[in-house]
Structure formats: C-alpha cells, structure tokens
C-alpha cells in the first residue's frame, strides 16, 4: 500500500488567501473544541480503517537553519519572511490502497469546521512517500 504525506498548509496553497479564512484566535471556545474534536475523529477513523501512520501538529515558532561552513556556527535566521508566509501547520501520514483514497482523506481533513462551524477549506499538499526498495 502506498503511503502519502498530507501537509496542512494553513493559509497557503495554490489559491490563497482562503475565502472563509479567520485565524483561530478569532474563534469561540466552542468552535475550537469542535475543530479539535474533528481532528481526533479523523485520526480515530483512519486507525479503525487500518490507514493511520502518523499525525502531528507543528508549532508556528521556528527558524531557518543552514550549514555555516567549517568551524562556523550554524546560520540561523527567523526572518524576514514574506507577508503571506506559507506556514505548514502539521501533517497526516496515511497508508492507503490508492491515490484516490489519499485525495478523499485530504478533502475530509480540509472540511474541518472553523469559524461559525463552516469548513475551513484549507489546502492539503498530498505527496507520495517513496519506497526504499525497487517496487512494481
């Protein structure tokens, strides 16, 4: 079964900004709870179907790091970032029968409820995970 990484791009994507986008700090507590409950339900459903591999959320904190050369410290920078910076909010990794199924899961994840309980429609980047050995 092929594995796919579903990258949650938060506000980024091929047609950003999102039409219904409102940052989470403008949601009500109930809306946040509903959103999180949805995520747990997706994980539970994927596990129950034998498709779940991993899911993680990423902190928005972070930095760019690069090799600085011999004897030099790593080059670290936290900016400047462009205004519409693409923020990867987290990922799912799934093990499914087909690409169609991967797309179906991505669309489900993107339907998570946000402000006013409406689907957030975030973009998911779906990437096949490569095998380490040759494969038919």
């Amino acid at each position, binding site marked *: *079964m*092929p*594995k796919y990484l579903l990258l949650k791009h938060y506000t980024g994507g091929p047609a950003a900004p999102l039409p219904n986008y409102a940052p989470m700090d403008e949601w009500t507590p109930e809306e946040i709870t509903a959103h999180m409950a949805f995520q747990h339900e997706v994980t539970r459903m*994927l*596990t*129950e*179907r*034998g*498709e*779940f*591999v*991993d899911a993680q959320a990423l902190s928005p904190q972070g930095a760019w790091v690069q090799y600085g050369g011999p004897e030099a410290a790593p080059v670290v920078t936290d900016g400047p970032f462009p205004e519409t910076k693409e923020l990867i909010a987290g990922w799912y990794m799934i*093990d499914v*029968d087909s690409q169609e199924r991967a797309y179906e899961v991505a669309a489900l994840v993107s339907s998570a409820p946000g402000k006013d309980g409406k689907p957030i429609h975030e973009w998911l980047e779906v990437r*096949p995970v*490569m*095998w*380490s*050995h*040759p*494969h*038919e």
Partner: protein
Amino acid sequence: MNEEALRDLVPQVLGVLVRRGHDFATAEDAVQEALLDAHRTWDERMPDEPKAWLVTVAGRRLVDAQRSEAARRRREEAALTEPPPGPAEQADDTLLLLFLCCHPALSPASAIALTLRAVGGLTTREIAEAFLVPEATMAQRISRAKRTVSGQDFTRPADIAVVLRVLYLIFNEGYGGRVDLAAEAIRLTRLLARESAEPEVAGLLALMLLHHARRDARHDEHGDLVTLDEQDRTLWNTDEIAEGVRILTAALARQRAGEYQIQAAVAALHDDAPTAEETDWVQILAWYDDLLALTGNPIVALSRAVAVGEVDGPLAGLTALEGLDAALGEHHRLDAVRAHLQERAGQREEALASYLRAARRTTSTAERNHLTKRAARLRSA
C-alpha cells in the same frame, strides 16, 4: 523446535479448529495466544506432540473465550459445549486457509496482513513493523479483514491465481523490521506447494527461489542497486538456483505453462549464465513472446523489448517499445528501458533525458538513485 518449524504448524492447527466448527476470527486469535504460550514454555519443556499441544491449548482458549462471552450475555453455563467435531483433519488446510485469507473481497494490503498472521503465524507487531505502520493500525486492518471473511465457506476453493498474487506481493515487499518478507513468502509458498499439484504454484516457488538466489549480489557495499549484468555472480546462492531449476523443470514437464512458470524460466536462464555476455537471450525472447501472448501485459512487452534489444540490437529494441506509451506513458520503467536502449544505440542526449525522466517518475529511492547515477555516468562519459 525452531521458529519456522513452529510457525509451519500454524495453518494445520487453525485448520483443525475451524473444521471443528469454531468461528475463524476467534479461532485465529486463540492460535496466536497458543503460539505465545509455546514461546513461553517450550524452551523449558518441549511437548512430545507439538501440534496436538497447540490444538489443545488453543482449544482451551476458545472455550474460555466462549465462556466469558456467554457470561457477558448471561447465558447458562449448561449451554457451553464444544461444537460437535467435524472431519478432524484434512491434507489441504493450508490451501483452504490461504483461499480464505486471500478472499477477493479483501484489498491486497488486507489480504497480505491477514495471510501473514493467520497462515504465517507472525504477530501483529511484526507485521506492523514490516509495513512501517503503527501496531494499532495493523491490528485494525487485520480485524477488519477477519470480519470481512468471517462466515465465508471454508471448504470451497476459490481462484488460486488470487492466492499466488498475494504471495508474490509479499515476496516483493522485501525487508522491513525484523521479518524477511521474501523468505516468509517462500516459506508460505512451500507450504502451499506441498498441498497443491497446480503447476503455477510450483512455478511461483521456483520464481521466488531463482530471484532470492541473487539477493546478496543485488546491492553494493553502499546499499545501492546493482543491475543483473553487473552483479558478482559468485555471490549467487547455487543451492537456491539448483532447487528452483529442479522445481521448475518438473512443473514445465506437465505442459501447462503459465505466467509464473514462464517468468521462472526467464530467471533460470539468467541464473544459468556464467557471465552476463553468455546469457541466452534468444531463449529469453522466446519465453517473453509466450508470456506476452498469454497475458497481453504492457510491462511484459517492456521486458520483451529489452530482450529484443539484446538479440537484434538496440534500435530493434526501441522499435519494440513503440506503441507502449498509450498503456504505460507515465510509468518510470518505460523511460528506464528506453534510456538503456538509447544509451546502447549511442543516442547520448536522448538517453540522458530518458534516464532523468525515469528518475523523476519512480517512487523508489533505490531506483531513483540508480537512474540518476546512470544519467551522471553518461554526462561525464
């Protein structure tokens, strides 16, 4: 008793329980638990009859399970009896269990997982590690598969081609975690071959052995792929080759050649050549002609084009590729074969582009590295 010999008993024990009328899913759990008991206690005291021991212990587990299930449902203790004994044992239990685990209603991934557990006797954790998924996910995959096949007729043989396909997929999964899935596929196919006279079963077993024989030569010291023509043939396992050839010869003598026997025949011709130059490509091409006529599979047409390239020259091979784009357009192997033939034909720029396109399209890192290196070698030549 070693691990494999113990696991060889699994389908026999499960077969006995299912024939006694026990539900397949529950019986399979009981056999797994009996296996764990065996691991715990056999080191100290090995039973005289290991199979009978497993049947007894698993049977006791089943009665326990029934009892607690019944208690839960507030049934009367008196209703608890073992189901009436059916035909105690049959010679073809492995075969029937494989039919059940490879049921066409299951996706390949589910059939593979269920086969490895119910027939192979591997634990859920071992299977999960082999496929790089969490144990909870694999447990669910297996229990869903069990629910799907539960209640299926245990006595009616299905299409053996489905079983062979699942075993072949397991063989090709290679290695993950502590379990050597290729070796496991060979073991299961051996069990099947003991019960089935179908020549394609023997053909698949021969094919696996003839490929497995080259295992140590297939990667270099960096773990990179080494193609057949560049492999160190002294590393090939001559015992496996001899066994594979013997099994194949007996199968072919029955005059019912099929897909696996033909692929095995090609593998045997490769294994038989002392050097790559001495490969009998004329015979290989003849087998691929047969295989293509039999299957119409465009991937076979691709392999055949390689053989044409060896017999009649790379330009003839390239001609043999014509018309495959429609069926294989995006498949990396079409570009890989094209690149190989273009390189041999001296079409350097075209070959370079084909290698890079193939490298971009493959979903295997081993193949991507190999194809990228081929392109690099060509660029610096």
